[in-house]
């Protein structure tokens, strides 16, 4: 089945991974990063992926969000079976369902704050991209920084722009990979507050990678990864 057809729209599970493993070949031979991961995430749920550095959290997040392919196993995202799609179709699925917040912000250097936030809607060809972006920037408290470039913003401000951009796509699932990892505690918690409140507002499913126990505690559910496996 290679077509991006919805299989059951009423299913409450938005993200589903069954027996997912990831093996990469390195110069020192094969490296098993993930092994036999089974995971279901329900719509509207907020889930924390926790674990030590190097345990495989980011790899799993990438696979769940359709950024990367598992070596084996099946991944479903909303109505799509991601593992049956090619990159072209996965991109379409991402554009439709997914938002991201990254540890390293990942704003486009050549675009202003406003243009960064406008980007997802623009890519979809939406007409009111600008109004929506203005609104979202106001929502994250950056209404006066429209024309500023990423390099003219502090880390916290950049991450707020990134959060605004993530919600601009009106995603079903928001994936956040250590969104506070590059920020100080105070700024970090402000960002987290922002993510959670927007999450409520837009009724988004949240998948949050963190090694911060307190942050994980704010989520509905917490899954621990160790050595590439889920340890309960």
């Amino acid at each position, binding site marked *: 089945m290679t077509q991006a057809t919805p299989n059951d729209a009423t299913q409450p599970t938005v993200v589903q991974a069954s027996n997912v493993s990831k093996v990469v070949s390195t110069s020192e031979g094969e490296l098993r990063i993930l092994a036999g991961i089974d995971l279901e995430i329900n719509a509207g749920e907020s889930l924390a992926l926790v674990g030590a550095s190097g345990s495989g959290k*980011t790899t799993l997040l*990438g696979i769940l969000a359709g950024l*990367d392919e598992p070596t084996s196993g099946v991944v479903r995202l909303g109505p799509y079976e991601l593992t049956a799609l090619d990159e072209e179709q996965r*991109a379409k699925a*991402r554009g439709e369902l997914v938002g*991201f917040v990254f540890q390293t912000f990942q704003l486009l250097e050549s675009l202003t704050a406003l243009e960064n936030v406008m980007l997802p809607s623009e890519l979809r060809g939406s007409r009111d991209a600008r109004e929506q972006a203005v609104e979202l920037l106001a929502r994250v408290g950056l209404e006066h920084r429209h024309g500023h470039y990423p*390099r003219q913003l502090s880390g916290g401000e950049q991450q707020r722009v990134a959060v605004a951009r993530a919600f601009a796509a009106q995603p079903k699932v928001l994936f956040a990979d250590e969104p506070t990892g590059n920020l100080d505690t105070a700024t970090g918690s402000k960002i987290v507050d922002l993510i959670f409140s927007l999450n409520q507002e837009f009724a988004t499913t949240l998948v949050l990678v963190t090694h911060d126990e307190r942050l994980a505690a704010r989520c509905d559910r917490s899954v621990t990864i160790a050595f590439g496996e889920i340890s309960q």
Partner: protein
Amino acid sequence: MNWRLSRMLAWRDWRSGELGLLMLALVVAVASVTAISLFVDRLQQAMLNESADFLAADRYVGSSRELPPSFRDLAQARNVQAVDTLLFPSMVFAGEELNQLVSVKAVSPGYPLRGRLRVATQPFGVGVVTQALPELGEVWLDSRLFPALGVALGDTIEVGLAKLTISNVITSEPDRGGGMFDWGPRLLMRMADVPATEVVQPGSRLTYRLLLRGDDDDLEALKEDFDLQPGQSWVGIKESSPSIGSALARAERFLLLGGLLAVLLAGLAVVLAAARYARRHYDHVAVLKTLGTGPNAILASYVGVLLLVAAVAIAVGLIVGFGLHWLILLALQELMPIELPPPGVRPLVLGSITGLICTMAFALPAFIHLRNVSPMNVIRRDLGATPPSRYLSYSMAAAGVIALLLWYTQDVLLTLWALGGTSLTLVIFGALGLLLLRGTRVLGTQAGSLWRFALASLQRRHRENLVQMLVIGLAIMLILILVLLRTALLSEWQQQIPEGAPNHFVMNLQPEQVPELQAQLDAAQLPFDEAFAMVRGRVVEVNGLSAKEHRAAQGEQDRPGANIGSERNLTWTATLPQGNSLVSGQWWAEASAASEVSLEEEYAREAGVSLGDELRFDIGGRQLTARVTSLRRLDWESMRPNFFIIFSPGALESFPVTYMTSFHLPVDQKRFLNGLLTSFPTVTVIEVDALIARIQSIISRVTQAVELVLYLVLVAGCLVLVASIQASRDARMHEHALLRALGGTRALVAGTLAIEFAALGMLAGTIGAIGAEVTVALLQTQAFDLPARAHPWVWLLGPLLGAVLIAGVGMISTRSLISTPPMLVLRGLS
């Protein structure tokens, strides 16, 4: 194609300056091709026009017999202008005892078809251009004839039976000296007056010419129409002045090669700029992909960006190229007072296509590459793109280079040479470069901290540095190649007409006059050549076949083999003359009594005559048979008397003979001719000093063009340097920010950079020097027919040029890197 996204990306990248270098490189490629070809196009036309002045026409048909009137009709049918001229020597009389042998040129209205006539208001006055011709019943005379004949303007002289009035002083006409037998002081008259003189009798020495002017295609077609008979020759600039012909051909090749090098260098800059742009966009693309943009949309929009950039660059390049060529024309205005014909569209088409090829072959692969960037790049930076597309880049770049080379040189062999040479160079120098880089590390461990850091940093990024070194080395190599070729061409052109080369020929000398003349030349301290015996004759039979049958047997009517039956100067010598070299056969023994003949190689080939053939000659009605026993090669550019046909001594002894010799007469001793002509009234003097001056002026113009090309190539080369330094800038930036964050002073960073760049440049320069020396040796022997020689100064200049250029350009383009606060650098502000 997602134009909206493309436009958005293009506009935003442009605004942030990311596309600047790519755009600039494309503009330089387009502009240099456009400027060079516009300039060459116009210069070529101008030079051809000027060369046509030597003939006073584009082509002419010459014969010693009257040309059929049908020729004029045929010319008219082809829309080709045609004018008759007739040249003959004649004695003119002024009063009872004064007379003088003159060279009469009779012309019909319309003469000259190219170039201008000049007249002076009094003998030995300054000539001014005139559109007029002598009226019927009038003649114009050379200054020298006025004292010789004791006449003044308005006087009457007798030419044969006709009495004609002297109405003007002629100082020059375009086709004077254009042929070897247009001698002596000139008398210009009208064709219509010739019958009245009754000097034109069977047996007189006559040269009929039908001058022609028209389009090249029409002229070539007309040549077919004429179906020339033996004794009728078709003459263009190449036939009449081989030295100008070959100078033009070489200049053309050089200019095109130069243009090609400029484009290739700019292409190299395009590759680097595109690669850098793409690399900087990996994150960009990854983010777009996480936002749901698929690979095809990415491809489409980035190709769109590229096409937009290409379109703008081509437009700007054409405008810049056009402006540049105007600037050059303005700058050369004083040196080139010729009116240039308007430019055609061809150069603009050439520029546009070059821009497209550069875009497709050099920039597109890097852009296609972007399609494969993994969205995981957002999280993990080191993923890059998949390697297979590298093969794509290399093969597309190679295809582009081959296409450009083939298109510009129109020469498969030259293309293969250039390609093979470049590949071999790259492989050898890759290895050599690696070795050199290793060497610097060994050196570095012995050095102070500044040097150690610089050299270690060279060694640390040795892969990128190797590539950069090869790229810069290639650029330096191309620049050096051009400098070397230019020097070789110029010095060869200068040698072509050495100081003191004979510029006057004396003909019609009686055997007993030869020692007298030589004594006079000796007395005036004028250097002169040996004297050659001369007999006029033509080939009538080859191996028993008549000239016509022989030509038919050759089968190829369009070959210049047609010249077999035309009248030639025959001579004899015991020894091989100076400037001649034996190609095949054997030179005759001193005592040989047999009738042997030696032919010029090219003449023999065109005539379809080979070693051992028996030729029958007609000399003034008497016949003579001789066997071809050797073939010679001549130095046509030597400006010395040259003979196609040389007999063994004795063979021509019984025929009436005259002698010719040549000597060099400086401009300020021109009056010497008066005395000479007074003591030897029957000889004829051919003055080629004007011709030589003309050749020199053409050469100096070609030199200007050559110089221009060199500058353009230099600009393109510098662009490569900037592009390649820009390419490594991102990596260096982080390193040096770190260095400064760790407490390194600005001076330390600057010093490190300077040393690193200079060392890189020196290594690249060494590579470039070796490459240039080898390539030039090959090019000179293969493409330009010049002897190869070594240039030790290049070995010094190459590394020095490399060090200075790279350090200079490098320091300028990384200036901001040094002065930016390290924190901003770490945060990614560039």
